[in-house]
């Protein structure tokens, strides 16, 4: 433990700025993945244990598109859309058959999806490490803010994530479609009786959740190594975020992701030996004190 250093960092503008930005950088990709997880749980009531797969697929699709076209914009779109499409197929053909069944059935379908997709990625892309490479536009020196440094790509990444989060929030709370989706979460039969195609909507929401994970994967592809099975550690972290924030709550996912990000950023300064433990401890504490999470509505 090193509280003096921690206090010193908080008091120094350059360190504070850098570490806060670190927290956001770490937190924002987690937020994208976790918000997809939360959206799916909130509306469909299922836990998508295969969510990491869509993060991985987003990264690989982006990688493939970037290799083929050299366009970063196309790569992002390919990652998001590809993950979304696979998500819709997965929902329609597999996941939708275990709605309302017990948790274990859903767990196993997801487990199967993880096994199959990891193997398929290995067959198609190989077992070796891949990296998409940084687009030219971002190959600049980090931006200096109050003596702290923030890489340009990360500013873009955090901006994208926040923007997507804002659009998601507005979409769910302000648009008619969003209101219908919230209604679907509460009472799907009734929504159907009002003339709305609930199956299509379920697939759409599941796909949207996967688009969020895929976008995160695509955004990560320039800076994180691609390997089969790369979704796992992201899945576990985004689970922690979802549980802390409250299953089904997207604002909760944002708060928890930032919380985790800052915990890691300042934990690295103050408690370098226990940074990961802090995350688990935080989750355990939340589960014990407030099982439905910080902003979760459903009671446990």
């Amino acid at each position: 433990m090193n509280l003096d250093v921690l206090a010193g960092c908080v008091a120094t503008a350059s360190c504070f700025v850098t570490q806060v930005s670190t927290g956001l950088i770490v937190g924002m990709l987690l937020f994208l993945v976790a918000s997809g997880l939360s959206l799916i749980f909130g509306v469909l009531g299922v836990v998508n244990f295969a969510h990491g797969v869509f993060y991985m697929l987003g990264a690989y699709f982006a990688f493939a598109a970037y290799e083929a076209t050299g366009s970063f914009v196309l790569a992002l779109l390919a990652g998001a859309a590809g993950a979304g499409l696979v998500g819709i197929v997965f929902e329609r053909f597999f996941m939708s058959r275990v709605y309302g069944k017990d948790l274990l059935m859903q767990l196993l379908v997801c487990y199967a999806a993880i096994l199959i997709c990891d193997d398929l990625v290995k067959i198609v892309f190989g077992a070796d490490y891949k990296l998409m490479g940084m687009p030219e536009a971002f190959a600049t020196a980090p931006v200096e803010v109050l003596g702290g440094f923030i890489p340009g790509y990360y500013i873009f990444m955090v901006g994208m994530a926040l923007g997507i989060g804002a659009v998601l929030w507005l979409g769910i709370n302000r648009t008619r479609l969003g209101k219908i989706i919230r209604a679907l979460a509460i009472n799907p039969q009734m929504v159907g009786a009002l003339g709305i195609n609930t199956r299509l909507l379920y697939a759409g929401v599941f796909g949207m959740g996967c688009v969020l994970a895929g976008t995160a994967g695509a955004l990560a592809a320039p800076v994180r190594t691609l390997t089969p099975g790369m979704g796992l550690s992201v899945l576990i972290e985004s689970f922690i975020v979802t549980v802390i924030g409250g299953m089904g709550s997207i604002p909760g996912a944002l708060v928890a992701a930032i919380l985790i990000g800052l915990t890691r950023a300042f934990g690295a300064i103050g408690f370098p030996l226990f940074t990961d433990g802090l995350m688990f401890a935080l989750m355990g504490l939340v589960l014990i004190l407030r099982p439905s999470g910080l902003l979760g509505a459903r009671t446990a």
Partner: protein
Amino acid sequence: MSAPPNPGVPILEVKGTDVFYGASQILFGIDLAVARGQTMALLGRNGAGKSTTFKAIAGIAPPRRGQVLLSGAAVSGKAPYLVARAGIGYVPEDRQVFPEHTVEDNLIVGAKAGPRGDRHWTAERIYEVFPLLAGMRHRMAGRLSGGEQQMLTIARTLMGNPDILLLDEPSEGLAPIIVRAIGDLIRTLRGMSVTILIAEQNMHFCLGVATHATVIDKGQVVYSAGIDELRGNDAILQRYLAV
């Protein structure tokens, strides 16, 4: 309301409908017709098959035999949402409002064009007809009383501009005084020539609001007539409605 394509044809027709749940048969050849502007009461004891008839019409419990026709076109076999789009506005029992939506958002979720693209029910028009809801438009629906929720569910379904409104047990579980207010509302809608089919156990309620009545028992239609005729038929009232 704009006129349906074939004015001579009943808006809703149920023909020889059998419904099964698993191996057990619930409905045995139900025949039912509702003409434009009627308020038809579907009467019967608990378990007689009223809700199942409604579910068969709404596409939730698809008939194994028989047909459901809307203005002469078959809707049976379609998914519930397609039945709703075809113009059947189904209000299930138990007042299923979206509790964490405001009153207005409940209406917005229900809003859709009618089967012929008509949109004569708007939120503003709803508030005229349901003045009680107007004052609560920003209230969470879950905070409304049982009677207010019942009105909201009816209003929400009207927002979909249906050709016919199906009300399943609108008086169930409500205090007698609220039941009367719901009755007043239905009479108002009747006055606006909205076609309505009501399933009820509460005979007295129905006698006050309906123009026609069909009585079912053990999954079969046993009587169908104008409401005044039923009122005078003590045999039917005694035998099937246990009054």
